[in-house]
Every structure is written in C-alpha cells, then in structure tokens.
C-alpha cells in the first residue's frame, strides 16, 4: 500500500530533528523500503499502523530506530583511497612536526559501521608502525556503532575495498567461514561512542585530525554551520579536517582554511 505524504513527513520531521538529515518530498522514496522494513521488524501491520503507534506515544527505542533508518550508513574500507594516502604521506608527518611527542588523536566523526576508522588504523600500521595514536569513532546511529565496536564484517563487506593481504593480516576468520572480525590488537586502537554532531558535547582543542566525509551533503546550511563550528572547536589549531572528494564549503560560514595537499584538498584550523 502506498504511504501517504503526511506519514512520510511525520517520520522525515523526526529524523531531521534528531539527526539534521534532510528528507524533502522528493527524497521520500529513499525512506519507503526502510519504513516498510522497520514496521515489519517492530511487528506493526503496516507503516500506517506504525505511524499511529509512534504518533500516540514515542518511546526512546522508537526514536532510536528512526535514527537508524534515517542515517546513511553506506561505507566501505579505504573508500576513495586518496585521503588515506594524504593522511600517511602528508598530514601525519606535518602533525608530528607541529606536535612533537604528543599522542595523535584522529576522529572519525561519522564512523558508521567502523570501516573508515579501521582503514585509518591499517594505513598507520603500514606507514607509521611506531606512531603513538588513538582513533575515536563517533556516530549517532546505535546499530552502526554496535557493529563498529564488534569489528565483525561479512565476506561481502570485507570485499568492498580490502585487499586480500590486508584481510588476512588484520582480521580473524570466524567459524562460519563467511565473516571476519578485526584482530584484538587492532581493535583496541579505536574507541567508538555515540555523538550527535550538531548538538553534542564537544572537547576543546582535542583532535589533531578529523575525518568528516559525506556527512554535510545531507544537511541543510544551518546544520552544516553548526557541525563545522563544533568540529572547529574540537580540533587543535593546526589540525586537519578531511571531507569527501568534491565536497565544498562554499556558501557555508566557517573559519577553516583550505589546504591543498599533493593529491587531496583538506581544511585546516589556523594556528592561533
């Protein structure tokens, strides 16, 4: 049965309020199968039935399930390899120069199911094996965070972006033969926690590098500015912001400066 626009709008409004992600009328089709799946999962007879349930009483669990379906969790290992090359060849050497003897903190700010954070660990292990670093992964989606923490990926997920040598080096195969788990020695280099990027609590001058790829494109200008201000505050002066290939901050108020690295453009928080 077709879902009425007022029902789409009801769910889209909650997703926007909780995550800042905009689903306008033209995007409703992207929510359709996810709403159908969610209503089946929660044992409602239909999306309309779920709408009646949610609009009469919204529990925190209901809200969390909507955040799960509203966030775009598509990700894979070493997605668009160039930021990782820029990280190991240019950003890390610069950070070591600027912050000698400091533990380097790298933030995967919308870590989704963890592939970006684990890719960073692998890249650093291969290029800077003695580096003193920690990775912090944050996301608003609890399902994605649970997966990231488990470090457990199916064969298909591992095939997206992972060379076979890396799979064998960094993962243990699970008994089912169809999935893999990141080895403990690498898993313990990262912490994952829940954070809403536009209204959470943010550390001040804390991170050296922040990865925020393909996040702002789903936000309206007002939320982009809020998120950028929060990231700016959390980065150390001289720290880097890494966004997705082709993403731009044109028309968005912010205090970052563009820095053109050899093969990738990043943004930097100017030194005070």
């Amino acid at each position, binding site marked *: 049965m077709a879902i009425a626009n007022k029902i789409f709008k009801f769910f889209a409004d909650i997703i926007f309020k909780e995550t800042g992600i905009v689903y306008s009328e033209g995007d409703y089709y992207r929510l359709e199968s996810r709403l159908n799946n969610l209503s089946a999962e929660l044992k409602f007879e239909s999306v309309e039935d779920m709408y009646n349930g949610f609009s009469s009483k919204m529990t925190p669990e209901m809200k969390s399930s909507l955040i799960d379906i509203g966030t775009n969790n598509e990700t894979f290992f*070493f997605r668009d390899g160039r930021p*990782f*090359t820029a990280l190991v060849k240019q950003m890390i050497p610069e950070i070591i120069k600027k912050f000698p003897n400091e533990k380097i903190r790298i933030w995967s700010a919308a870590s989704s199911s963890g592939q970006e954070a684990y890719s960073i660990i692998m890249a650093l292990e291969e290029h800077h094996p003695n580096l003193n670093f920690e990775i912090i992964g944050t996301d608003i989606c609890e399902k994605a965070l649970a997966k990231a923490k488990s470090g457990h990926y199916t064969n298909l997920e591992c*095939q*997206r972006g992972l*060379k076979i040598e890396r799979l064998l080096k960094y993962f243990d195969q699970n008994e089912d033969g169809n999935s893999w788990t990141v080895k403990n020695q690498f898993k313990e280099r990262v912490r994952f926690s829940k954070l809403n990027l536009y209204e959470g609590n943010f550390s001040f001058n804390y991170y050296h590098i922040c990865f925020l790829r393909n996040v702002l494109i789903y936000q309206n200008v007002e939320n982009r500015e809020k998120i950028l201000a929060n990231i700016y505050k959390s980065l150390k002066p001289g720290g880097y912001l890494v966004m997705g290939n082709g993403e731009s901050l044109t028309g968005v108020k912010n205090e970052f400066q563009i820095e053109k690295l050899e093969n990738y453009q990043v943004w930097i928080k100017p030194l005070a």
Partner: protein
Amino acid sequence: MKVLIVDDSKMILNVVSEMLKELGHEPFKAENGQIAVDFIKAGTAVELVLLDWNMPVLDGPGFLQSVKDEGLTTGPIVMMTTESKMEKINKAMQLGAKEYITKPFTKEVIEEKIKMVTSDEEF
C-alpha cells in the same frame, strides 16, 4: 582489458561476462581449467583471469599449477569462488593467485578487485 572467466556455471559465466562488458572489458569464457589452458595456449593475450575453484577436468588450483609449470602468460589471476575458508585462500595465494573474491559478490567488488591487481595504488 581481455579478461578470461573460468567457471563451470553457465549462469556465472554469463552474469560476470555482462558485468565485465559494463565495466569496459572484453570477456572470454572457459568452462573449466583445461579449456582455459588450451585457450591461452591458442594465443589470445589474456590480461586477467577470474578463476573458480571447483570445476570438472581441471579445477582452480590445477589451473594455477599448470600456469606455473608451463609458464603461461595470463596476467593477474583473481579467484572467484564459494570456497571462503582461510586455508583455501592461503593455498590459492601460494599457488600464485593475486586476489580473492568470494561468492556472492557485486559488480563493484569485481571492479575494485580488478583495480587492486592492475594499479599500483596502495589504498
């Protein structure tokens, strides 16, 4: 790129062949390892092989061994199989395979794995 698909399933041969065409490659099909060996010996300059494990007459490891023993030029060989156990992966790599795809897979996986064995990009 001339890509030889070696698999005893006609369905896989056809599906992967279509995927490769969409990715801009020129696919060739062989229904087992022996047909693949004969095809290469006949002179087609194959640039990459997608290789199943379990096949009649000559299986995937048998093909890898023949390539080694007879010094055949095949370009990089990528396994494409339901055999997903680590021991099997290690065995294929020892025999000369360069990458490993487990079924089921998507067109994106084939595209990325081909890129991994044909480019020198690290990430």
